[in-house]
């Protein structure tokens, strides 16, 4: 396991911002230390400090779900938590779910079912759906729809998103 420290995004800040602390996060299996201001959200830490731009900023107010990541296995809105609050947490982003060579079953199902148009909400949809599968509460189409209600798709690909998730849900584990 490698450890690296990231200090500032995109060069030095325009003005000096005083209180900076250190936070250690385990992201997609890799421990990362960040020098970071306390008001940095987990979402901004991922995108601006760690170059993990798979996680998307949509509304930045917890309403759209584009920023969904898994923290200690649970899906949350990364825009509504501070990076410093997640000291020591195990974080999985879309980059950690699958690789181009070996897609996560949900990633393959989203492709097979044409479950996106512009694709902006897709990383959040897939992270959310991955947690839905492990939670084990959704059994029916209606329950998938209800338990995916925190992820908005402005293109309206809902029918195919639900179909993709349902296929993975109903596929026996190998």
């Amino acid at each position, binding site marked *: 396991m490698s450890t690296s420290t990231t200090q500032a995004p995109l060069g030095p800040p325009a003005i000096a911002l005083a209180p900076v602390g250190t936070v250690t996060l385990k992201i997609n299996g890799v421990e990362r230390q960040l020098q970071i201001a*306390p*008001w940095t959200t987990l979402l901004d830490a991922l995108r601006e400090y760690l170059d993990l731009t798979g996680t998307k900023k949509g509304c930045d*107010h917890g309403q759209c*779900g584009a920023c969904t990541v898994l923290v200690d296995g649970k899906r949350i809105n990364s825009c509504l938590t501070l990076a410093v*609050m997640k000291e020591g947490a195990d974080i999985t982003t879309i980059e950690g779910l699958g690789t181009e060579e070996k897609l996560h079953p949900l990633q393959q199902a989203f492709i097979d079912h044409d479950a996106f148009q512009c694709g902006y909400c897709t990383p959040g949809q897939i992270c959310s759906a991955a947690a839905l599968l492990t939670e084990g509460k959704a059994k029916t189409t*209606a329950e998938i729809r209800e338990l995916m209600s925190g992820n908005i798709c402005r293109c309206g690909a809902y029918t195919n998103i639900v179909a993709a998730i349902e296929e993975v849900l109903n596929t026996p584990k190998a």
Partner: protein
Amino acid sequence: MNSFTYTRATAVDAAVREKSADDGVKFIAGGTNLLDLMKENIERPTRLVDINTLPLTTIDSTPEGGLRLGALATNADTAWHPEVEKRYPLLSQAILAGASPQLRNMATDGGNLFQRTRCYYFYDLATPCNKREPGSGCSAIGGYNRIHAILGTSESCIATHPSDMCVALAALNATVRVTGKNGERTVQFADFHRLPEDQPQFDNTLAPDEIVTAIDLPNEDFSQNFSYLKLRDRTSYAFALVSVAAALQLEGNTIKEARLALGGVAHKPWRDSAAENLLKGQPATEETFRRAAAAVLQDAKGYGHNTFKIELAKRAIVRALKQAAEGTQHATEAFKNSNP
């Protein structure tokens, strides 16, 4: 978001001391509402004290046979907790009717009590709002007020309390355990939140340095005949226009005990004991339910765009009481309500 310093609480007493020593301190738990308000510059704390380090996450039986929800238990862990599902399914159902799975994973039970209103003018720094800036006026009265209150309003404020969970807690006679400078005390749920009167800036009756440590559910059985009915503009993930928590204890077709609380209609979860008394001893019929509904809304006042809520609330009460009497709802079937 303004700049602030950040520390982690080491103990409940220490957290209370930190807050009482500095007006700029805010506690942060789930952060789902506080950070949202900070991004809008409505909340501007100078220091955040992270209380997630405190040992308040468990759900345990109380010596009196009830259930104690730790203030830091998440909404999701509470709604899906086997004891809550079995003994307090009304609470499970109310929690699952609110927010999204992501937010329920973050939001805590204690934090849910401190949610602030979603009145659009409260969120809009460009408009007057007595809750945000006391004395500046209320933009909702005479403005666009479709989501606003119809009961217990004042000339200062017609905002509603947004929580679903709190409506069920009011109906279930929960008590809130609170620690402050002078030690621990308990607050009846009905007395926790307040009406706006001429001080809408205060949502609840706690002192500024008090912290909620737990919510206690009494040893009462409303696990058979209950309903949480939430009516909103879209099927899921929206705040209530009107919601009803109804719970009955029946002997044959006679109502032995009744609980009735409404959400989306007032500055606090609206429990109506007088309407409950109208139900007690009566047959569980539509006529009885209609009388209770009329009693709840007899002093209701519409402000134009929200006047439809008066009739909506009456019909919702009747429907929720019918569902409760029929005993057709179960926590794990909560989705049926929202996916007809």
